[in-house]
């Protein structure tokens, strides 16, 4: 028999048992639905994390810290013994020179820690403020104004929009180009009167918290150069040139991961955005894998449904099989007839599951709203290729499940099958 004729006949006999076919297909579709959704959520989750990373960091930026070496000790330490494990290390200028010598490093800027006692706007009211230095080129969500390379120029600052009102400005737009004064105190021994001075900056831009931002903190951000000036003024000479960390910017043509490894080799602790990304991706993958696992279980369960249905189908059509064999149909034709039937069921189940999952995909805006995600965020992204592969795989699974019944059909003795009574 020709393949096309067998497939047509297989489809026809399924249509003759509509309810049974539909129910078997529905059992498979549960698995297909779950897997499709899991894959869609995985794709969407990865895309969302990608966005998240882009908004929260700059892939070319590496954070370098001193390695904290700790001796492997067991049990409590004996009193009076000198602790020879290296405590929290600081990096010095020699470390910076060393890091700078690593190929692919464009710049290495110490992470200065700075603080301001208060800030003052045109209304002359003093407010506490967080002060930080913007050395990375991570993107910021601007409410007003503009930045070059996502960094303020020396003499200007980036201010959070929640500060605008207390400074005495009516809107973010109005504050652009206007002054802000920061009072910087010298760090001194507690109890001593603090010595300090005012520094006035121009507001270059106003930023706001973005929905994809992970660790947004309200505050005032100054340029790297101004940061250094403040640090030099503020930090006592004894503690100078000791940095908690160094921010490395990799060269355009260098692979950040290679540079990360090279700096690590020099004996430093290096963290990059990729690390975070990897952690997030692993998380997304685990969630996706878990859901897909449930789908696979559902499919496994539905296999028994297929086997059962096909056995019943063989029993019901004993006479038809006998007739076909009497008319000269080959054993393999009969086997194929039932396997194609199973494949049709698998196809149907895959299709129904995929379509149902696509329907759930229509809820994307609602999901984004429920999770307070930015408008337009799609947490479920369907890849047509995955669906095609899934449906093909289900057809294969169905054929394998239909193997035993189809063998039974092929082996049927036509004389027995055609015995009347």
């Amino acid at each position, binding site marked *: *028999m020709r393949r096309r004729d067998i497939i047509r*006949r297989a489809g*026809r006999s399924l249509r003759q048992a509509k309810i049974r076919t539909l129910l078997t297909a529905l059992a498979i579709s549960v698995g297909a639905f779950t897997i499709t959704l899991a894959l869609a959520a995985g794709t969407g989750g990865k895309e969302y994390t990608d966005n998240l990373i882009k908004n929260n960091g700059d892939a070319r930026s590496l954070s370098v810290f001193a390695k904290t070496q700790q001796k492997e000790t067991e049990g409590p330490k004996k009193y009076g013994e000198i602790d020879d494990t290296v405590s929290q290390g600081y990096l010095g200028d020699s470390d910076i020179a060393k890091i700078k010598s690593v190929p692919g490093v464009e710049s290495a800027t110490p992470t200065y820690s700075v603080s301001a006692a208060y800030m003052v706007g045109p209304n002359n009211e003093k407010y506490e403020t967080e002060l930080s230095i913007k050395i990375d080129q991570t993107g910021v969500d601007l409410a007003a104004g503009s930045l070059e390379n996502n960094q303020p120029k020396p003499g200007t600052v980036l201010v959070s929009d929640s500060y605008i009102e207390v400074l005495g400005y009516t809107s973010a737009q109005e504050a652009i180009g206007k002054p802000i004064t920061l009072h910087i105190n010298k760090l001194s021994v507690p109890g001593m009167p603090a010595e300090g001075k005012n520094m006035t900056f121009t507001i270059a831009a106003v930023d706001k918290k973005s929905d994809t931002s992970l660790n947004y903190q309200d505050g005032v951000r100054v340029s790297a150069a101004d940061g250094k000036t403040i640090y030099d003024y503020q930090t006592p000479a004894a503690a100078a040139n000791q940095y908690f960390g160094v921010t490395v910017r990799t060269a355009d043509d260098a692979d950040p991961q290679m540079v990360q490894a090279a700096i690590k080799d020099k004996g430093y602790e290096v963290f990059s955005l990729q690390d975070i990304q990897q952690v997030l991706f692993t998380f997304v993958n685990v969630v996706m894998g878990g859901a897909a696992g449930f789908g696979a279980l559902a499919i496994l369960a539905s296999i028994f449904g297929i086997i059962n249905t096909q056995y019943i189908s063989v029993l019901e059509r004993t006479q038809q099989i006998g007739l076909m064999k009497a008319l000269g149909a*080959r054993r393999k034709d009969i086997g194929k007839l039932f396997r194609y039937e199973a494949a049709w069921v698998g196809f149907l189940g895959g299709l129904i599951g995929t379509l149902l999952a696509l329907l759930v995909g229509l809820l994307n805006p609602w999901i984004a709203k429920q999770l307070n995600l930015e408008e337009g965020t799609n947490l479920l992204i369907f890849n047509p290729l995955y669906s095609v592969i899934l449906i093909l795989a289900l057809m294969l699974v169905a054929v394998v499940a239909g193997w035993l019944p189809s063998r039974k059909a092929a082996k049927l003795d036509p004389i027995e099958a055609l015995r009347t009574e």
Partner: protein
Amino acid sequence: MIQVRHITKTYGKKQNKFVALDDVSFSIPTGASVAILGKSGSGKSTLMHAMSGLDRPEQGEVVIDDENILKLKQKAVDRFRATKISFVFQSFFVQANETCFDNVSLPLEIANVPARERKRRVVAALEAVDLGDKVRSKAKNLSGGQKQRLAIARAIVNEPQILFADEPTGNLDSATGDIVEKLLFDYNKKNGTTLIVVTHDHDLAAKCDIKITIKDGKIESISERQAKSKKPAHRRRVQL
């Protein structure tokens, strides 16, 4: 020419052994109509199964066109059944949920006849049994006589050399039975197809050229109808 030589078929083993066919031999000339007459359990169906290659007796040969079909490989036997013989059964075995067209098309699909050729031959076969207006009807909507006519259309669509009819009128009233008989004998005469009717109905058997009576797995008698001026069929007495 169909030659059946010394066929023996047994079922079961040892004390349960049952001899269904016991050293049966005869021959049938091409184009004849033959009745295999016998009571139920006489072995007539087993004989038909052996002659059509559905069953394989332990001993003997069935020579059709100088070929012993019992020695053929399964593939060749299937091919033989698909191209050279066909069946009409007592209980029709038409596929109730399929259209008349699809029912009749089945043997052609099995024989790998191309779709266009199939369409022509199916319609012709349905017209030959006077079901030309039922091409698209479902088989379940047909009456008993129509179903058997549909089965005949299915049996003649591949233009067989040998047509086996197993109690073709057994499930029909006499009026529709007559129509079915007429169709079978007309086809036999017109196309020179050998018609082998397996039956216990003496009236039906009397209408055939050759009557082979079988009893307890042995041939009881072979008689030839004398009436018409037809060329006498070759006959061979069997040692009983």
